């Protein structure tokens, strides 16, 4: 491989400046898989979502639509929602009790007399584009007109639970490690789920795996988080949740072992990158070209650009 190209591929998976470029120009412009619609089934169900470092809330409004907002009170910018998940027909900021309904509209301000000329209609939560495609919840911060990814429907499946892991590797390195594996059962090769995720079978379940650039705020080029949504065959509530079955313990263990093994591989590759080497598994350019295309080729500095 050309030395210059090898150098670029290395840097793109470890350079803090390239990581910052991705945070600024890549992630905000993509339709990102934020979860499954069935996880927010009823009016008022909400979830925090911060995998790209930007705090968002996804909520099922009382009209049945899923909406997304920046998790930032319009008073002083404090987080309105602090629990990862919950259910309420209104969201109240804990600082000064500004309260918003499920449409993000400001509906209540205690001691309103203290706020001169406060116009409620100008202080709604700032919306973020959100849509549901084939049961997947997608959010897009700044390019809502962009084409949404073609995602596989999961008919007959229901979200059982979502697991979260972290790895000391760049998100692209981790994705490559997962992609090269054969899933928890060692039987099925993953298939693409959007551009930062994989779908892999485990027994009768499907695992929707997505890899994200921020494990913990503020994030870094050599860490990432991995979300695994377990999509199990639909079950009857009267039969009890599969989470309470003995099979789930085995399944959970297998998933954890698989992600841990993939993370160990990814972390080893990441150490090689830091040491000036480029593992053969990371020499593919397709994903890098995909990233450049999404950022906008002219926005990627020449020193990092991966040519067509």
């Amino acid at each position: 491989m050309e030395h210059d190209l090898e150098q670029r591929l290395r840097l793109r998976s470890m350079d803090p400046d390239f990581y910052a470029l991705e945070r600024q120009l890549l992630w905000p412009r993509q339709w990102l898989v934020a979860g499954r619609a069935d996880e927010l089934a009823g009016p008022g169900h909400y979830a925090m979502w911060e995998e790209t470092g930007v705090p968002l809330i996804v909520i099922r409004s009382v009209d049945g639509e899923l909406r997304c907002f920046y998790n930032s009170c319009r008073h002083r910018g404090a987080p309105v929602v602090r629990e990862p998940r919950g259910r309420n027909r209104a969201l109240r900021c804990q600082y000064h009790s500004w309260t918003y309904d499920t449409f993000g509209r400001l509906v209540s301000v205690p001691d309103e007399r203290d706020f001169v000329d406060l116009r409620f209609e100008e202080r709604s939560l700032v919306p973020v584009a959100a849509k549901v495609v084939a049961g997947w919840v997608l959010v897009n911060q700044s390019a809502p007109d962009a084409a949404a990814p073609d995602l596989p429907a999961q008919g007959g499946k229901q979200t059982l639970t979502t697991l979260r892991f972290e790895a000391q590797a760049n998100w692209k390195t981790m994705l490559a490690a997962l992609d090269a594996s054969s899933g928890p059962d060692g039987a099925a090769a993953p298939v693409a789920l959007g551009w930062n995720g994989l779908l892999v079978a485990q027994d009768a379940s499907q695992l929707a795996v997505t890899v994200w650039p921020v494990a913990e705020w503020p994030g870094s080029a050599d860490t990432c988080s991995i979300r695994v949504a377990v999509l199990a065959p639909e079950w009857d509530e009267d039969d009890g949740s599969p989470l309470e079955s003995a099979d789930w313990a085995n399944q959970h263990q297998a998933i954890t072992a698989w992600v841990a093994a993939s993370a160990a591989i990814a972390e080893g590759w990441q150490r090689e990158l830091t040491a000036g080497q480029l593992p053969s598994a990371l020499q593919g350019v397709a994903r890098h070209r995909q990233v450049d295309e999404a950022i906008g080729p002219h926005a990627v500095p020449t020193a990092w650009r991966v040519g067509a």
Partner: protein
Amino acid sequence: MPIFACFVKFWPEAAMRGAPRFSADSGWWEAAGAFDAAALLVAATAEDAADAILATASGARARPVGGDSTVGGLPPGVAAQLYRGMGGWVLVGLPDQPAWLTLAMAFLRRRVYQRATFATAWHTPAVNELAALVFATHHADDAAGTCRTYGVPATHLARWAAEAGPSASAADIIQYGAVLLAPPEVTALAGSETWASVLTAALTPEFRDDVALGPARATVNN
């Protein structure tokens, strides 16, 4: 024992198809138009009347406690309003205009205060819809405590102090409610055959029989 008039508004998704609505007749029953169902209940206190409402909605057994009432002493026709909070339910009394101002400013917003008085707030949909939203974001015991700190009579219904179970079942059905010591012209209906059926049936989620309330309405209109 006193007789309480109890009113309940259901969430839209829980509302009974064909739920009877009171006609906007003049007089005291005009207020009932803001609600979906009503009943006269014999109870020792407003808290026990609220307990009966929640029990009926959730299918649990009513378990009156009796004793002293925190929101007691409200004169006939003055409401204690029932809202769901986090981990329970709150009963808030509005005995006078200063109490209403305090509640509106501490929890709600100026506009609702400007459009309703303490005598009308309990049956004003905009007030109750907003209060139901806001109280649901407060821990029920905290909200009751804050009200009392500001001199607004309020109580946290201890028996319904749970996030799950019957308390949550009732919360899926009831958007808000109101309890009033029935004024004499309504109390006069108590004991009649018509109201006997209302007492046991009016607040059950399965209640869809417009006929049961029809004669009652006719009786009132008469």
